């Protein structure tokens, strides 16, 4: 099985970049900030009080799970903290544990194309087969429900998607999500909704909708989530990670929430994989939810400014790239113009292009085909990095692409 699982292309680019001195990396989706002081202090206090040396309960500290559900309630998502929330070692553990629980060998899992690179190996580890569902690039990388339905077979067991989407920064609308939910009910499959970027909505997005004569109020968080839909809670796994929102990638802490019957099954797999999430990180996560609201708001302002900066800089490279302004997350996914590729005879795909940028311009990006076939001829750039890095990277790119003018 290990033969068909290789190192993530994102990490591969980071590895290549690390071998070249002076590279500016816009590759890996890592925030440029350190973890907020309040969170670090919460972890330090827990260490000093002798609270982190032992295993926690497998689903996590009671007080953390309780605060998680209180925060979810503020977003109109209702779960029982005692039986429906599992704190995991990062969101990828939540995804892998769920896949290992629900899949039998050969089961198919629908994934949007393009989407986060690590979904495919997580599915394969569980013996599943990823099936790409192309997103509609012309419609801001939205779901094409007809394309989705075409790919559903008797072996389809789940849809795994990221909302807002990585790498496109797309927010899927309420109507699209309802259509997806209807498909799941009709064809009896699970939905895993990975909402790691839910706190980075740049322009108040969800405006509500109408069902018949009834007006549906906008979602409280600005992002409508399928976790707000009670009718599918028995087939929905909601996933959130602290990594991006609270600059905690190294702490490896996330959680999933789902109906108690499914949660009970996933808990068994989670126990086998990690016993429990790191307890010190659980206390840090508790600190994040209780005390880091202002940090979160601060990051949001900064990322929005960086989003605007990277778009301005991309506008100056209009002869090289065309792009769609991301609504959310901290990625932009520009398309490489055909005229440029025609002028680069040695470049046959986005991987070659990204390696060319790395080796010649000393700027690391991620090739679009790493995110699925529809990502070909695109690259992903992360604006989680500092403004200084973004400006330096684009100064280098402008210099490199001058010859193609």
């Amino acid at each position, binding site marked *: 099985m290990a033969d068909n699982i290789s190192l993530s292309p994102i990490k591969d680019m980071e590895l290549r970049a690390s071998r070249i001195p002076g590279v500016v990396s816009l590759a890996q989706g890592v925030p440029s900030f350190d973890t907020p002081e*309040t969170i670090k202090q919460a972890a330090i206090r827990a260490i000093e*009080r002798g609270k982190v040396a*032992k295993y926690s*309960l497998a689903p*996590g500290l009671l007080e953390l799970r309780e605060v998680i559900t209180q925060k979810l309630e503020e977003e109109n998502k209702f779960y029982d903290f005692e*039986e429906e929330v599992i704190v995991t070692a990062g969101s990828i553990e939540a995804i892998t544990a769920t896949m290992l629980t629900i899949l039998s060998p050969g089961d198919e899992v629908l994934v949007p194309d393009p989407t986060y690179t690590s979904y495919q190996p997580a599915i394969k580890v569980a013996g599943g087969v990823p099936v790409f569902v192309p997103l509609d690039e012309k419609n801001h990388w939205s779901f094409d429900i007809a394309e989705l339905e075409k790919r559903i077979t008797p072996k389809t067991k789940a849809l795994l998607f990221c909302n807002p989407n990585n790498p496109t920064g797309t927010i899927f609308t309420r109507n699209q999500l309802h259509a997806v939910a209807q498909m799941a009910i009709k064809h009896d499959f699970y939905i895993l909704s990975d909402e790691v970027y839910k706190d980075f909505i740049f322009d108040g997005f969800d405006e509500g909708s109408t069902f018949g004569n009834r007006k549906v109020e906008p979602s409280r968080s600005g992002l409508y989530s399928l976790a707000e839909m009670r009718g599918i809670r028995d087939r929905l796994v909601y996933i959130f990670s602290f990594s991006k929102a609270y600059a905690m990638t190294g702490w490896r802490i996330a959680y999933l929430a789902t109906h108690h019957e499914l949660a009970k099954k996933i808990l068994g797999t989670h126990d086998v994989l990690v016993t429990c999430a790191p307890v010190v990180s659980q206390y840090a996560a508790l600190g994040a939810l209780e005390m880091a609201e202002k940090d979160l708001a601060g990051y949001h302002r900064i990322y929005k400014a960086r989003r605007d900066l990277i778009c301005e800089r991309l506008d100056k490279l209009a002869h090289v790239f065309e792009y769609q302004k991301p609504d959310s997350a901290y990625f932009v996914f520009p398309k490489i113009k055909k005229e440029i590729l025609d002028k680069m005879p040695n470049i046959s795909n986005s991987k070659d292009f990204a390696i060319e940028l790395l080796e010649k311009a000393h700027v690391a990006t991620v090739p679009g085909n790493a995110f699925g076939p529809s990502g070909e001829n695109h690259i992903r750039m992360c604006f989680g990095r500092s403004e200084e890095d973004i400006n330096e990277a684009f100064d280098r790119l402008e210099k490199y692409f001058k010859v193609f003018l």
Partner: protein
Amino acid sequence: MKPFFKKFIQFYLKLYTKIILWRFRPFVIAVAGSTNKTPVKDYSLKFLREKYGADDVRGNPRSYNTEIGLPLAILYLDSGESSFWKWLEVLVQAKMKALFSSNFPKKLVLELGVGKEGDMRYLLGMVHPDWAVVTNIEGSYSDAESNLDELQEEMKVLAKSLPAKGRIFLNFDDGRVRSLAKNTKAEVVGYGFSEDATAKISNLKTTVEGQTFDFEFRGKKEPVEIKKYGRHNVYAWVIAKIVKESL
């Protein structure tokens, strides 16, 4: 925050809290336990505000319930976080409120957060609850005995502190909580699924929309539907209901 500065803030916040409580003498309902304090407080505030009006009832904003959080909750002030100057401002405001404010709620529903031995005694040095609710005594660690006895001792301190005309609402489904009945002069009101509970829950069902159950108190039985999941929310609703009906 430096330990000396923290002690300094703690001392003054406690002093001003005692002054304001002495001046206005509100009816205090304390909510303690391992978990479920916030849902109990939230439901209680909702029900009591329906009965007495929003201005007359107040609870901890967020979950301010520790040695610094609780006085902030009572004085209704925000945290100074890690800023020295903000804390000085908080202390000035605390002093002004304690000495000169003319309005204060008549009823307080206060979560008491206890993390280690001695915490309850410290909090009770500030507030003297008339009534108390104990939600549960549960652990977060995989070894079953992990500090639960210590936590039970803290809850005993609360039970013992209540006056004879006071009332304590105990979760009769939790053995450790139930046993607190032996440690109080106050009237004991047991709630839960147990047969001998005064406020009894039965026939609990989970539906797509939430939960339904039957609630029986003082000879009256009624069907209830709540839009939330999990037993803890059922307990929280029941506690709030009996507190409202008893007050």
